[in-house]
């Protein structure tokens, strides 16, 4: 992890602040593309993922934005109440699980704090002269972050809020499947779930979304299973009450975990043999060669992994 100094804290709305993070000596940071996120570890040792929402052309600093959450698990509360300019946090290099792929046209759909990965996408698409539009669902003007930057993007951006363009009707917007249109969406679970539901009849691959929260997963009750490590030949049991990631780490098998909720992808492990019950929010239907051991488990008695 890189030590980064909090250069500036900016109040973006009544419940969102943005942080500008820079190397202590001002050197250039690792490059990133829109959709990327970094893991940020606070002095409290809590680690969370935040989408980069600044300018990828400026590697002098990273910008992230943080929502003050009513039921904070601690990090959001800490950042809003105690993080100050000049303090140091630790951050991973950027990773991108939400890259923008070539398409004829783009529709960006963001809600709330989900604007963070979408804003740099919009800036990049605008700079590239792409055919794109954005709908941003916000609770109201007081909750609207990045107001000036959204305004500068012009009328391709519709802000859907009671005191702006009105409520966003996803079912109407997405009623007609549009071949060639790539949809990128990020927001709270109820928003991304609604986008996913509204696009069920669209061609597969049309929707790209990033979740902050795990999608609801119906899982069978935990059962114990055996993990076989292909490289060392070691085997061990994962008991009912433990995750596979806990079990790996407890045996000094270093698999990094970050979100521990199946959304960030940092604990990914390749599966060589055995079926997986995917409980994460990342795997699609055809992606079965990996397991996210922070949440997922073996379907059968044993799986063999590439460790």
């Amino acid at each position, binding site marked *: 992890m890189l030590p980064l100094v909090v250069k500036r804290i900016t109040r973006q709305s009544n419940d969102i602040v943005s942080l500008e993070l820079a190397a202590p000596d001002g050197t250039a940071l690792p490059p990133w593309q829109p959709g990327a996120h970094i893991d940020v570890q606070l*002095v*409290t*040792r*809590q680690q969370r993922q935040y989408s980069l929402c600044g300018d990828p052309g400026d590697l002098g600093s990273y910008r992230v934005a943080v929502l003050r959450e009513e*039921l*904070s*698990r*601690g990090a959001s*509360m*800490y950042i809003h*109440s*105690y993080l100050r300019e000049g303090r140091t946090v630790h951050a991973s290099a950027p990773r991108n699980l939400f890259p923008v792929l070539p398409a004829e046209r783009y529709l960006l759909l963001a809600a709330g704090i989900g604007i963070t990965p979408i804003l740099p996408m919009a800036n990049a698409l605008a700079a590239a002269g792409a055919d794109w539009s954005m709908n941003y669902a916000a609770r109201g003007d007081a909750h609207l972050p990045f107001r000036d930057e959204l305004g500068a993007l012009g009328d391709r951006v519709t802000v859907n809020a009671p005191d702006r363009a009105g409520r966003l009707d996803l079912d109407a917007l997405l009623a007609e499947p549009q071949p060639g249109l790539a949809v990128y969406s990020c927001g709270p679970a109820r928003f991304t779930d609604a986008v996913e539901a509204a696009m069920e009849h669209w061609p597969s691959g049309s929707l790209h979304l990033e979740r902050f929260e795990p999608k609801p997963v119906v899982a069978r009750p935990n059962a114990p299973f055996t993990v076989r490590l292909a490289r060392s030949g070691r085997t061990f049991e994962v008991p009912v009450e*433990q*995750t596979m990631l*806990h079990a790996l*780490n*407890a045996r000094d098998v270093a698999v990094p975990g970050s979100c*521990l*909720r199946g959304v960030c992808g940092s604990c990914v492990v390749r599966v060589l043999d055995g079926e997986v019950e995917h409980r994460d929010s990342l795997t699609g239907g055809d992606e079965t060669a990996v397991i996210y051991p*922070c*949440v997922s488990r073996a379907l059968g008695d044993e799986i063999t992994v590439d460790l």
Partner: protein
Amino acid sequence: MKTEFRRLDETGLRAHLGYPDAPTTDKILDHLDSSCLAFLAHSPFLCLSTADSAGNCDNSPRGDYPGFVRALDERTLVIPDRLGNKLGDSFNNILDNGHVGLVCFVPGMTETLRINGTAYVTDDPELMSMLEQDHVTPTLATVIRADQVYLHCGRALLRSGLWDPEMQDLASEVPSSGQMWAEASGLSSEIGQLIDDAMVDGYKTLY
């Protein structure tokens, strides 16, 4: 060896101790001010005192990520219950007698934060969701209504060298936990070694 001594009353005590200065009593608050809240937000460790209704006392360590004691407001604190020994000594006392006392520590800081108040035990699901750590949500938490809060001066920690890394050579002179366990349970020191070995693995599961 003599083990019983003269017992002082308050007059005898104050003859030695004197009385606190006004500034000392003035800093006792009935809530957590912003400095106390900041102290708590960075504290990974505390000792929790409880007593049953007959006055039998207990003191028990609690530790977690810094800021694990969550202040919901300036008087309401929450301590999540993490994996432990299931004795529930503190819980049993709190059910019997809600009065609690806390001493909270911040590594490297010699002053400690003392908080006294009354507590109860809850399993409120919304509250539990806020206390999730490392993918584990506790099932119980202690809610404390603070009514006395003050920063305790740093002399005890300064004199003890508690945060001095060089003082850690003391630990190797103390019997291991396995040996202490074995002795307390009337088991052999070989068993004590096995307990120590098992603890190395057991301690890898913290949540």
